[in-house]
C-alpha cells in the first residue's frame, strides 16, 4: 500500500506539473476563438464547376483541331453540361478513325456513339481529381493572398476531406469588406489585342463585321469602375496572362495616378515582345476577370515589364498587385457565411464567462464541503486540479477556447463532482452496511468505477459527434467537454483515491471517516 502511494503521488504531481507548465502564461498559451478575441470568420465555397468547364472547353477545342487535322467532316462540337460535350454530324464510315483519336488523345473521357454523333463524358475519377485540385489550389492561393495582406495567425482550411468549402478565420480584422474582395477576386489577368471598340453597344461595335463576332475574337465589357464602360472586341488568344507575371507591385503611371507595375518571366517577355513589336499603334486591352481595365495603345516594343493603369485608388492598386502576385484562383468563389465579432463584445464575453465560472466554482465547492465535510475537501482539491488539467489540455492540443467552450468548462465544474458524489455515496452505503473504513473506501471506489466509466464514455460519444458536426465555437465546446470529462475521471477516480489512501495510511487504525 505504502509503496504504491509513492508512484501514484509522483504521477499526479507530474500530470499537474505538465498542465501548469503548458498553460502558463495563459494569455499566450490558450488560443482564444474569434468570438472571444474578435475577428472575421468566412465560409466560402469553391465553384468547382468552373474548373470542369475549363477542362471541357479545352477538350472541345482539341477535338475540333484533331478532326480538322485528320480531315474528318463534322457539323458542330458543343458543350452539353460541365464535363460532357457532343460532336454532331459525323459520318458512319469515320467511326473507326474517330475511335482511334479518342482512344489515343482523350483518355480522361468516356465516349459513346449514338445517332450521328459521339458524346464524351469526363471519367468520374478524373472529375473528382480536377475538383479536388481546384479546391486545393484555391486554398493555396487564398493562403498566399492572406499572407501577403498581413494577418497574424490566420486559419485557412478546407472543411471536410473532400469538401468544397473553405473556412477562413482572421483574428483582429475588423472590417471584412477589403479582405473579402482580396479573397474573392479570381485575378485572371489577360492581355489581348483590341480589334474594335470601345463602343456603347454591340451593334455599333460589330457593324464592320456584319453584326457577327468573328471566330477568332470575343466580346468583352469595360469595367464600369475603371473605364467608360461599353464593349470591346478583342482577339480570343491572349498575348500574355497572369501566369506569365514574375512580380507585381503598386506604382504610379506617368500622371502620378496609382497603377500596378509588373515584370514578366523570360517566356512571357519573349511572347509579349513579339506581339507588341508587330502591333505598334494598336490598342491592347488589359482584362481582369473578364472586364477591361484599360486599353492603352502600344507605343513601342515592350519586353519584360509594364504598367497596368485604370482609375485605381491607392488601396485598389495595392490589392490588385497583391492578388496578381499571389496567383489566380482556379475557380470562382461564393461566400456562404460571414461573421464579424468586435473585440469589445469578446472582452465582455470573457469577463462574464469568468464571473459565472468563478461563482459556479465557489458555490459547488462550498456545497461539497458542507455536505461531505472533510471528504468534501478531497472533492474540492480534485475539482481545482481538474480545471488546471483542462487548461493544460487546451494548451497542449492547441484547441481553441470559445464562448461555448467557457460554458463547457462551467458545465464540467458541475458534472466533475458527479464522479466524487457517486463514489462518496457508495462509500456511505458501505459504511452503513457496517464495513470498516478502509474496506468501505476500497469498495466504494471499485464499485463506483464501472458506473463512472460507462456514464462518462457515453457522454464522450455525444461530444465526439458534436465535434464532427460543429464549426468554430461549437467545436471548441466539444473539445473542452471531452478534455473536461477525461480530466474529471482522472481526478475523481485516481487523485481522490490517492488522497483517501494517503490520509487513511497515516492513521494506524482508522475508525471514522468524515464523509
Amino acid at each position: 500500500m505504502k509503496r504504491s502511494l509513492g508512484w501514484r503521488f509522483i504521477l499526479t504531481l507530474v500530470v499537474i506539473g505538465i498542465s501548469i507548465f503548458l498553460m502558463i502564461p495563459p494569455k499566450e498559451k490558450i488560443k482564444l476563438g474569434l468570438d472571444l478575441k474578435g475577428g472575421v470568420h468566412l465560409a466560402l465555397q469553391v465553384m468547382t464547376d468552373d474548373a470542369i468547364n475549363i477542362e471541357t472547353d479545352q477538350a472541345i477545342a482539341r477535338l475540333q483541331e484533331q478532326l480538322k487535322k485528320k480531315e474528318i467532316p463534322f457539323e458542330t462540337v458543343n458543350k452539353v453540361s460541365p464535363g460532357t460535350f457532343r460532336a454532331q454530324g459525323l459520318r458512319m464510315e469515320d467511326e473507326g478513325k474517330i475511335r482511334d483519336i479518342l482512344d489515343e488523345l482523350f483518355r480522361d473521357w468516356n465516349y459513346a456513339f449514338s445517332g450521328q454523333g459521339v458524346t464524351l463524358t469526363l471519367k468520374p475519377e478524373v472529375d473528382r481529381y480536377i475538383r479536388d485540385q481546384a479546391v486545393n489550389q484555391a486554398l493555396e492561393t487564398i493562403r498566399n493572398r492572406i499572407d501577403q495582406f498581413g494577418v497574424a495567425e490566420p486559419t485557412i482550411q478546407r472543411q471536410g476531406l473532400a469538401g468544397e468549402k473553405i473556412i477562413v478565420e482572421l483574428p483582429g480584422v475588423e472590417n471584412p469588406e477589403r479582405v473579402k474582395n482580396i479573397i474573392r477576386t479570381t485575378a485572371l489577368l489577360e492581355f489581348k489585342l483590341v480589334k474594335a471598340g470601345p463602343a456603347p453597344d454591340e451593334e455599333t461595335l460589330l457593324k464592320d463585321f456584319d453584326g457577327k463576332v468573328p471566330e477568332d475574337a470575343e466580346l468583352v465589357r469595360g469595367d464600369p469602375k475603371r473605364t467608360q464602360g461599353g464593349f470591346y472586341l478583342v482577339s480570343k488568344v491572349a498575348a500574355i496572362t497572369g501566369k506569365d507575371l514574375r512580380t507585381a507591385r503598386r506604382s504610379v503611371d506617368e500622371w502620378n495616378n496609382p497603377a500596378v507595375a509588373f515584370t514578366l518571366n523570360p517566356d512571357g517577355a519573349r511572347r509579349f515582345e513579339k506581339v507588341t513589336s508587330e502591333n505598334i499603334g494598336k490598342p491592347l486591352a488589359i482584362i481582369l476577370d473578364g472586364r477591361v481595365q484599360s486599353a492603352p495603345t502600344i507605343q513601342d516594343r515592350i519586353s519584360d515589364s509594364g504598367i497596368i493603369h485604370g482609375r485605381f485608388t491607392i488601396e485598389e492598386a495595392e490589392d490588385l498587385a497583391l492578388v496578381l502576385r499571389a496567383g489566380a484562383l482556379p475557380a470562382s468563389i461564393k461566400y456562404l457565411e460571414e461573421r464579424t465579432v468586435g473585440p469589445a463584445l469578446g472582452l465582455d464575453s470573457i469577463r462574464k464567462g469568468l464571473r459565472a465560472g468563478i461563482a459556479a466554482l465557489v458555490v459547488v465547492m462550498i456545497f461539497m464541503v458542507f455536505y461531505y465535510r472533510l471528504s468534501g475537501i478531497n472533492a474540492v482539491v480534485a475539482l481545482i486540479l481538474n480545471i488546471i488539467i483542462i487548461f493544460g489540455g487546451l494548451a497542449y492540443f492547441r484547441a481553441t477556447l470559445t464562448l461555448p467552450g467557457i460554458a463547457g468548462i462551467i458545465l464540467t465544474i458541475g458534472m466533475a463532482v458527479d464522479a466524487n458524489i457517486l463514489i462518496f455515496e457508495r462509500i456511505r452505503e458501505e459504511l452503513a452496511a457496517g464495513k470498516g473504513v478502509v474496506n468501505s473506501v476500497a469498495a466504494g471506489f471499485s464499485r463506483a468505477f464501472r458506473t463512472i466509466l460507462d456514464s462518462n464514455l457515453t457522454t464522450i460519444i455525444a461530444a465526439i459527434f458534436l465535434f464532427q458536426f460543429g464549426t468554430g465555437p461549437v467545436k471548441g465546446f466539444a473539445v473542452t467537454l471531452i478534455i473536461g470529462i477525461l480530466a474529471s475521471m482522472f481526478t475523481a477516480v485516481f487523485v481522490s483515491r490517492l488522497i483517501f489512501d494517503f490520509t487513511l495510511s497515516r492513521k494506524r487504525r482508522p475508525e471514522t471517516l468524515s464523509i
Partner: protein
Amino acid sequence: MITLFKQPRIKFLNYKYFAFALSGAIILAGLINMTVGKGLKFGIDFTGGTFIRIKFREPIKTEEIRAKLSPKGLGDSIIQEIERGQREYQIRTAGLIKRGEKPGEEIETHVIIGNMVIEALQKPEELAQLEKGFKDLNSIDHKELVNLLAQGFPEEAEEVARKIIELRDEKGIIESFDDLRGLGLKEETIKFLQEKSFLGSLCVLSRETVGPQAGKELRKKAILATVWALIGMLVYIAFRFKIAYGVAGVLTLVHDVLVTLSIYSFTNREINLPIIAAILTLVGYSINDTIVVFDRVRENLKILRKLPLEELMNVSINQTLSRTILTAGTTFLAVLFLFLFGGKVINDFAFTLLVGLIVGTYSSIYQSCPIVLYWQKIFGPKKKLK
C-alpha cells in the same frame, strides 16, 4: 453526516402512467405548436440572414429603432434589447427570400441590408460628417486612427491610438471626449481629435451574415449529428449492458430532446448552432444519469433475485436517488450561474441546458426504468436483463 434522504422508499414506478401522460402532453403540445402554432424560431444559422449587435451612445427605445428602420423597408426586423439600460440591442433582419432576390446573390444582399440597418440608425448629421471626411472614433480601426493622429503628433500616434482603442474595447463605445481625458491624454491631443473626428452614436459589436445555402446544410448536419450520437450510444449501451437497456436509454434521450424542444418552442428564443450543441450535451448528461440507474438495476438483479422487477427498480432508483439529486443539483447550480451572469450571447445556450438538466433528471427516474420494464414484459424473462 448530512443526508438528503434517510433511506427513501418512494414507489416511483407507481407513477409511471402519470409520468407518461405528463411527458406525452408536453410533447404533444410542443408538436402542435411546432407544426400548426408559432413553432420553433430558427435563427440565421439555419435560415440565413443578417444579425447585428449594436451598442448606442445614448439610450434608445425599441420603438424608436423600429421607426428608423421602417422607412427603409426594414420595419419587420426582429429587435431585442440585450441589456437593461436601452443601450445594447440585437437586430435581425427578417427573411429575405420574399424580397425576390436571385438565390446566388443572396449573401451579398444580406450584407447590403446589414449596411442599410446601420446607416438607418446613424444620425443624419453623422453621415454628413463622414461625407466631409471626418472620422468616427467609434468605428475607426487602429491603423486609420494612427494615420489620423500622425498628422498632428507623429511621435505619440501609436501609443495614443492604442489607448483609445483599448478604452473603446473596454467600454464598448466611447461616450464623450471626457472619457478620453481619463486616459491622461494631453489637452491638445483631445482638441485635435475634436477637430478632426467625432463620436458616432453607435458601435457595431458584432455582425453575422449567413447565406441560405449554408443554413440548409447546417440543418442537415445538426439532425445527422443527433441521430448518429443516439445510434452510437445505443450500440455502446447494448454492448456494455443488454439491448433492452440500450433501447430504453435511447428512447429516454429521444424523450428528453422532444420535451426540451417542446418547451423551447413556447419561448421567444431562437434556435442556432449553440442550441444544437446544448441539446447534444444534455443528451450526454441525461444518458449519464440513466446509466447510473441501469447499473444499479443490473447489480440488484444479481443480489435481490426474488424481488419482482418493478419493485427492484424502485429499490434501485431509491438507492441512487441522493446521487441523482446531488449531481443534478451541483450541475444545475453551475449552469444557473452561467444563465444569470454569462451574458446575453450565451443566455439561450444556458437556458437550454437548464431545461435539459431538469428534463434529463426527471426522465432517468420516471422514464428509463418503465421502458425497460415494458420491454421485458414484451420480449422475455428477467434474467435476460442481468
